[in-house]
């Protein structure tokens, strides 16, 4: 599936407050299409693991208005865990259209310190 990370107003409201639980709630919750959730056996608000060559991350998956095959995640440390940097490019890391494998998981969502430190 393809991951798109982006700004949201809720994420923006926590920009100066990134160690708060509110920031974690907002930035670790991805949006997926109902059909993808069904295909992967996920329940709304259930945990999901995204994996690719850059790393892996556990998120909460929520049903939202998005096309099949796409996942939207607010930008932040959770999105960064699966974003990367291509050599010989224009300096811009890959933040949108990142290929990820998605699976249902029982693992818990890491907090910001666990991701950073």
């Amino acid at each position, binding site marked *: 599936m393809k991951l798109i990370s*982006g700004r949201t107003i809720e994420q923006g409201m926590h920009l*100066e*407050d990134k160690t708060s639980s509110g920031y974690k709630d907002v930035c670790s919750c991805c949006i997926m299409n109902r059909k993808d959730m069904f295909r992967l056996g996920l329940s709304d608000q259930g945990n999901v693991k995204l994996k690719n060559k*850059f790393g892996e991350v556990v998120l909460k998956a929520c049903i939202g208005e998005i*096309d099949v095959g796409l996942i939207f995640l607010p930008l932040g440390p959770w999105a960064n865990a699966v974003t990367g*940097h291509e050599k010989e*490019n224009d300096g811009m890391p*890959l933040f*949108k259209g990142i290929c990820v494998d998605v699976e249902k998981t029982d693992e818990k969502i890491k907090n910001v310190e666990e991701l950073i430190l």
Partner: protein
Amino acid sequence: MERKNIICPFCGCLCDDVYVDVEEDKIVQIFNGCILCKAKLSSGERVKEALVRVDGELVPSSYEDAVESAAKILVESSMPVLYGWSNTSCETISQGIRLTEKIRGVIDNTSSVCHGPSLLGIHETGLPTCTLGEVKNRSDLIIYWGCNPVHAHPRHMSRYTLMPRGYFRRNGLMERELIVVDVRSTDTSKLADQFIKIEPGCDYELFSALRAALRGHTVPDVAGIKSKTITELSLKLKNAKFGALFFGVGLTMSGAKHRNVENAIALTRDLNQFTRFVIMPMRGHYNVDGVNQVLTWQTGYPYGVDFSRGFPRYNPGEYCANDLLASGSADSALIIASDPAAHFPRESLEALKKIPVISIDPFKSLTSLISDVIFPSAITGIEASGTAYRMDCVPITLRKVVDSGYKTDKEIISDILNKVVELQHGSKV
């Protein structure tokens, strides 16, 4: 209690109609600001004192000792990266460039992870643009492409584009049409007269198709959009009296990146053969444009400038912060007015954790968790004055309305510069 006017120091809209009630040097109420402005002015954990890492632990330090530690780190590095700058004043940025030159480092700002590709596109084609005031007074067609201003620039539509009454648009919203192009439905697309849902990474193709349709060619279905829709859209653009295309990082971060922007500008240029059309990037941080301006005046280049040979060199993809971190070339970092630990990819973060990091920020950022020297600073625009550039390149003076007692970003950078010169030559600048 006193009511004071401020310029909101959050996003590139730099709204100048925000008022705050100040009581005993504290903001007690905010008027006109959007939810992002209110969150910035009323939340956030402040860093209270300078901190220096000793034996793995951050311990309180005197300001002078922290300046000395920071200067030593920079002087002893062979490739220091000075990154951020987008949430501080032009005056601070100017000092930062002098500091970078002295230590033969690299200065980069958040453009390299947002609108850097826009600047590369602009290098190629120029930018047919105008001020937001002109858009407000004249535009009858607004396009938001790859951006979601309802979330990222909440007052953009109400102050500058869709809703305000303008000199030639007395009825405001009633005389304007809104088109949104995006890969997903957003709160902005829900307000649009026409929402065009495009396949991810296919913006370049759609711009090309629109340019061909403008010239009267028949185009096939492109980017998931039907041929008929593309032809009708090209006519709509042509028939507008004054069109304004605003684009976000949806263009700069996906598909052809800077070529997307180049093609968007080419479309705008083509449209000017038929009508008046302008284009503008939706700049995020309130002074991200200011960094590009000041860097260009002083070095000739807008971001990612390398001074390692004693003169400025520019090559995005080689001298941007992420490039230097990913390649392992950066051996120290000074981070000011931004939070790369929260916004850089994992491999850059891992590289940042291996090198000494100096951070200057009013709030406890995620970068401060991995820093070796931390300076608390005054919030520019509230506790310090200075100049910032709005997204349409209009300079605006930010006001100081609260006395916090914290050093300003400019004072901290100047003190580090003085200390660097002292360490290098045994005298002050």
